[in-house]
């Protein structure tokens, strides 16, 4: 087995395609960080100019995560391509026959493929993450690893990626050629992004919703104290519009996947980042306050045609 591992590691090390992906993993996250830096500081209010970037802790954390964890969406198609071409060549050139004749068992041969492909994947992920952290640091966005907790989340993302890598390897071994498994693996890589989007669509607001409900309930208490609402009405509003009511059935279905996957982590940081970005906008805050107060007043005083539903809608905006 060690001889086969030495064989495969040498092949990977000598593979031009591997070094191309490694190069991509170095350059792309740095470019992404620089691009985000440019977009975030772009000021179009008086022509095109770049203002000084001021981001809160949550924003920095969000961008650190988003740019670094992008390997889970960027690299799978390359790994699929690399795995299928790399292993497929062993079949097309008859090398696997050579290994069997030499006296290696098939299990050892397939095992060596899986181990070396996984090692290559981990290596590329680490390169990508390191480059991303370097990129956000030098671009001026800044680095916030949430006290090191983000590394655990990176590790989880890498494990998810490794599952994909093993499936690519298994497909390449099963089909014993290059073209067909390549198509399948690319489809898997692309569909994983689509699946992530679907799960994310149902789940991303989840964390934001928690924050929203907390603020909303505090507001209700305030309204009760001010005499605009009585306790029963406040309780009724809280009960009727709980988290499930806002999130829907999709959230219930996908939430378990979301909790333990990088998609969930993305949602966590995204919720924090988005909330922070919105709350930093004074204009938006003012607008929301005005709308909510206006509708609340109208509802309480019986003006116009405002009904309780309008109140909920205004709440949801927040």
């Amino acid at each position, binding site marked *: 087995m060690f001889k086969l591992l030495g064989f495969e590691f040498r092949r990977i090390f000598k593979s031009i395609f591997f070094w191309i992906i490694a190069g991509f993993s170095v350059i792309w996250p740095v470019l992404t960080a620089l691009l985000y830096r440019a977009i975030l500081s772009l000021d179009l209010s008086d022509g095109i100019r770049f203002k000084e970037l001021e981001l809160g802790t949550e924003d920095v954390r969000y961008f650190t995560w988003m740019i670094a964890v992008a390997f889970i969406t960027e690299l799978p198609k390359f790994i699929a391509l690399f795995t299928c071409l790399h292993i497929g060549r062993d079949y097309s050139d008859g090398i696997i026959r050579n290994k069997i004749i*030499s006296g290696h068992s098939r299990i050892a041969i397939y095992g060596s493929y899986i181990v070396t492909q996984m090692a290559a994947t981990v290596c590329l992920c680490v390169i990508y993450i390191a480059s991303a952290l370097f990129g956000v640091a030098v671009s001026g966005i800044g680095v916030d690893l949430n006290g090191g907790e983000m590394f655990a989340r990176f590790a989880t993302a890498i494990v998810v990626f490794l599952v994909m890598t093993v499936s690519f390897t298994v497909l390449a071994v099963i089909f014993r050629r290059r073209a067909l498994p390549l198509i399948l693996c690319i489809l898997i890589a692309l569909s994983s992004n689509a699946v992530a989007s679907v799960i994310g669509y149902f789940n991303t607001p989840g964390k934001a919703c928690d924050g929203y409900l907390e603020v909303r309930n505090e507001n209700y208490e305030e309204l009760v104290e001010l005499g605009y609402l009585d306790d029963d009405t406040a309780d009724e509003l809280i009960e009727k519009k709980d988290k499930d009511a806002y999130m829907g059935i999709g959230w219930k279905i996908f939430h378990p996947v979301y909790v333990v996957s990088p998609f969930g982590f993305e949602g966590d940081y995204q919720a924090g980042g988005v909330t922070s970005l919105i709350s930093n906008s004074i204009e938006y805050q003012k607008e929301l306050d005005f709308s909510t107060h206006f509708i609340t007043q109208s509802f309480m005083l019986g003006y116009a045609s405002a009904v309780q539903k309008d109140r909920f809608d205004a709440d949801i905006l927040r």
Partner: protein
Amino acid sequence: MAENTDFIIKVNEVTKDYGKFQALKSMSFTVPKGSIYGLVGRNGAGKTTIMRVISGLQKPTSGTVEYGFDHKKLGNVGALVELPSIYSNQTARENLVYQYINLGLKIDGSIEENLQFVGLGNTGSKKAGKFSLGMRQRLGIAMAMSGNPEVLILDEPINGLDPQGIIQIRDLLIKLNKERGVTIIISSHILSELSKLATDFAFVEGGRVVKEIKAEALEDAGGLVTEFYSANPDKLVPVLNAKGLTATYDSSTGVVYAKGYFNLTNVVLAANEAGANIARVVPRETDLETYFVKLVGGESNV
């Protein structure tokens, strides 16, 4: 596993089924140590299948293959079955380096020696994909003989080669066998070439070995057969027998067949004295192909 035996491989009643098709039907043969063992047979006779079974690429449905050496030791079996197993995007040297790593051998000067041995010492940075068929075959043999195998299994190693390539491979195999003592199991469609190489033959037909024979015995069985055309065959046969030939008269063709070598002038004079005029003499060399056709019948199609 049996060691210190006089055979290198012993195939016992090996059967190989592919669904309903039976490629090997209780095939048995024994490969003596140090021999060049030629497998002769038509397309689909089972030559490649038995080679795949012996080299470990396939498992037999039933029967056993005994090895007269530790065949589980890495590199003790070298094989070139169907096409050479080489990376087309690598140089000859790099291919050998991979094979050395595969076998756990120390990467040293023996790589260059092996390349020189097969005549690929000066290929430099040329990729194997750009090699001629003969060069690829020789590289395949170099790969197969890395680690000094006890047995080298070669399936059609001269297939598709030009005459020069055939001579090169033939010389290489003889050198391997004589200088390194490697037992070689070889199949080829080019029977004239096989007859120049092999020390032993197995004739394969319909998934069975129908005959095992040594090269010397094949020569004895064949040799020169001369056709004599005469108006008095009954007088000619005793004359030929008296000259040390084995003569028989075939009344259906009207030809006297004489096996053995002779002095034509002496035979003609003796026949003349005996009153048996010889109208025509046609020498026929019985070669491997003729022997094969006689053995399995019909067109050789090998």
